[in-house]
């Protein structure tokens, strides 16, 4: 994007960009909500929304209108400031993370040289929002949910950041545009399969999505920190979640799948680049929704144990291996081999945590012939 849109001065230019972000993110979040409902429906042998508008496309609009019309409740004993500011602190940082996303060559809101650092720092501010929502609601279920969410997010920050670090080491820069352009020949997933898996799992946990959605476990704590919110405040949480899903899709495709540059993105112009970004982000979003439809949720201690005992050591090992390869000038294929070995190890460790189910043996023996006690 040109440095100053329409030749406006810096302040107005910034305002226009901010408005662009808000508009794009709101529309994208509503579209993603619709897509999730339709896709989850098909995974569950049913159709999603179908009556509001063609193919149910206006369902999110109808929901938004309904939510605007609801009464804005606050429990009497709830702490006013914490309760009311919580939702804002959940979704505003995600909107801010949109600023450094690379969509096409030269088209981004503002590409920062410290892009990755900015993204990680800004998206972790939403943890504070969850805790505020949980504490401010004056409700035991909400407090449980808020604390669980904070513990989970903090635990998964470390593998999240470390896998990004290994990618940044390879590219030699924290600027996201540089990383994407550097993948014009080969996407990073070829060199860093282990980091991709760890980052994907950690990103699922950061988004509070299945199988890591225990803070919003509907069948246990009935909504977690959201339980006292109604109307537009409640929808802000969901706006944040789906906007975050979109950003994660674009970000992961930029970091590991080559973004707009691979294959042949840089040669074929911005139309093709937009198509590539859209395709890769859609693929990842489909994968995330597919996972949501297929997996139960992990318990909080299992979730944290998985992060600290499995993902973190492997992420550290990945960074160390990257360091070795770069310092001693080893060929890059070493990274692929070690990465694939790491993936196999991760799969083995995950399977080892549970016992394989045994089919119960049918017994034709009558009660009297065996001691029952």
């Amino acid at each position, binding site marked *: 994007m040109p440095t100053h849109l329409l030749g406006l001065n810096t302040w107005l230019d910034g305002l226009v960009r901010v408005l662009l972000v808000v508009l794009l993110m709101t529309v994208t979040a509503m579209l993603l909500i619709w897509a999730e409902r339709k896709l*989850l429906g098909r*995974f*569950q*042998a*049913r159709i999603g929304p179908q009556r509001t508008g063609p193919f149910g496309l206006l369902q999110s609009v109808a929901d938004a209108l309904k939510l605007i019309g609801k009464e804005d409740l606050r429990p009497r004993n709830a702490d006013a400031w914490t309760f009311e500011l919580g939702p804002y602190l959940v979704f505003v940082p995600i909107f801010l993370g949109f600023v450094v996303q690379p969509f096409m060559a030269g088209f981004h809101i503002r590409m920062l040289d410290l892009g990755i650092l900015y993204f990680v720092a800004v998206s972790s501010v939403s943890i504070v929002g969850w805790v505020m929502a949980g504490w401010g609601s004056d409700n*035991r279920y909400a407090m*449980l949910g808020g604390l669980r969410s904070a513990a989970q997010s903090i635990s998964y920050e470390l593998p999240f950041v470390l896998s990004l670090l290994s990618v940044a080491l390879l590219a030699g820069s924290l600027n996201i545009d540089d990383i994407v352009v550097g993948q014009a020949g080969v996407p990073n997933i070829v060199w860093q399969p282990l980091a991709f898996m760890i980052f994907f799992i950690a990103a699922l946990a950061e988004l509070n999505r*299945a*199988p890591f*959605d*225990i803070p919003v*476990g*509907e*069948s*246990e704590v*009935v909504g977690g920190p959201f339980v006292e919110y109604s109307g537009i405040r409640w929808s802000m949480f969901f706006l944040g979640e789906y906007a975050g899903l979109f950003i994660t899709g674009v970000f992961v495709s930029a970091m590991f799948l080559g973004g707009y540059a691979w294959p042949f993105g840089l040669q074929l112009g911005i139309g093709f680049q937009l198509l590539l970004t859209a395709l890769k982000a859609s693929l990842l979003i489909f994968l995330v929704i597919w996972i949501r*439809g*297929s*997996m*139960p*949720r*992990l*318990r*909080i*201690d*299992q979730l944290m144990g998985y992060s600290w005992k499995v993902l973190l050591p492997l992420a550290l090992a990945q960074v160390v291996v990257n360091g070795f390869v770069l310092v001693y000038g080893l060929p890059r294929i070493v990274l692929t081999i070690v990465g694939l070995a790491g993936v196999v190890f991760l799969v083995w460790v*995950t*399977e080892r*945590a*549970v*016992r394989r*189910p*045994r*089919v*119960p*043996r*049918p*017994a*034709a*023996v*009558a*009660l009297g012939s*065996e001691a*029952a*006690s």
Partner: protein
Amino acid sequence: MVTESAHEFETRDLLLNVGPQHPSTHGVFRMVMQVDGEVVRDVIPYVGYLHRGAEKLCETMDYRQGIGFMDRTEYLASMNAELSYVMAVEAIADLQVPDRAQWIRMILVELNRISSHLMFMGAFGVDAGIIGTPMIYGWREREAIIDLFEEITGDRMMFAYFRPGGLAWDVPTNFAARVQEVIAAVKQGIKDLDGLLTYNEVFLARTQGIGVISAADAIDFGMSGPSIRASGVHLDIRRDEPYLKYSEIDWNVITATEGDVFARYNCRLQEMWESVRMVEQCLDRLEPGLIMPEKMPRMLRTPPGEVYVRTEAPRGEYGIYLVSKGGNRPYRLKVRSACLSNLQALKQMSVGQYVADAILVLGSIDIVLGEVDR
């Protein structure tokens, strides 16, 4: 209640009220859990929210009117509830049920067992955390079974189809073909559920090793059904005190040894396969004939006496204790509820587990509140 740990911190336990309106209490059931952080220290169940006085009402009903009330106790497995009741009346009045009625009763009872277990799969999957997917997979096949029941009896859930002496009316002429269709659909559904849940590592991590109850404790609590068979006790009323025609077909009793939540789930899954086999064998043995004894009186009067009859309902031992003082109504009708006895073990199984696991333990006992409260 104040617990002291390490001299500096004084923590207080949290009283968490689960229900009676809650997505995972499977009906109107209330538990008060005393929770220390995330660990459950005590569980106090409150039952009685669905008490409708079924037993007392049946004292004012004759034997045909009372069938509707028995349906509504165990509403997910109504055929089994009706079966116990009519078998008790037949035992007191000494009625001989014709063979054709026995085979048809067996087919319907086993199909109802499958549909009840499919309902369990749905609710249990939602408790474990997959919103919707196992529920729809289970209910899709349950819909096929219930459509069949509607074609035979006229109703989808409260059948009122069994009568003392046999069946109310005969099955439609395309019965065998329809049952074959339903069985084919059910097999696909059980395969889907099996593939979705049984091998899933997250599901295994959530359900293995929690809610364990030993065989001795289970017997002490008076548990029955798949809940006790999962702890290694070889107790199945269909084999130990055979009724209908269970001694004439080839089937297995499914037991497991671990006694945890996963074993209970797996036992129910394998029981569904066994029920499918049983239905196929019964279809082969079905022949034309009478469905009620000849010369049945219009209004059945039973001689004085008392009898206790029990059958293997999907949830355990569903027993009817019937006292008759002559006449066309029972003097006292008591329903021995499987779920209420199984529910007594809830505290033993949940104390020491996490809150999320306690919810799963409750789900794995598979209660239906109509039977707990009657």
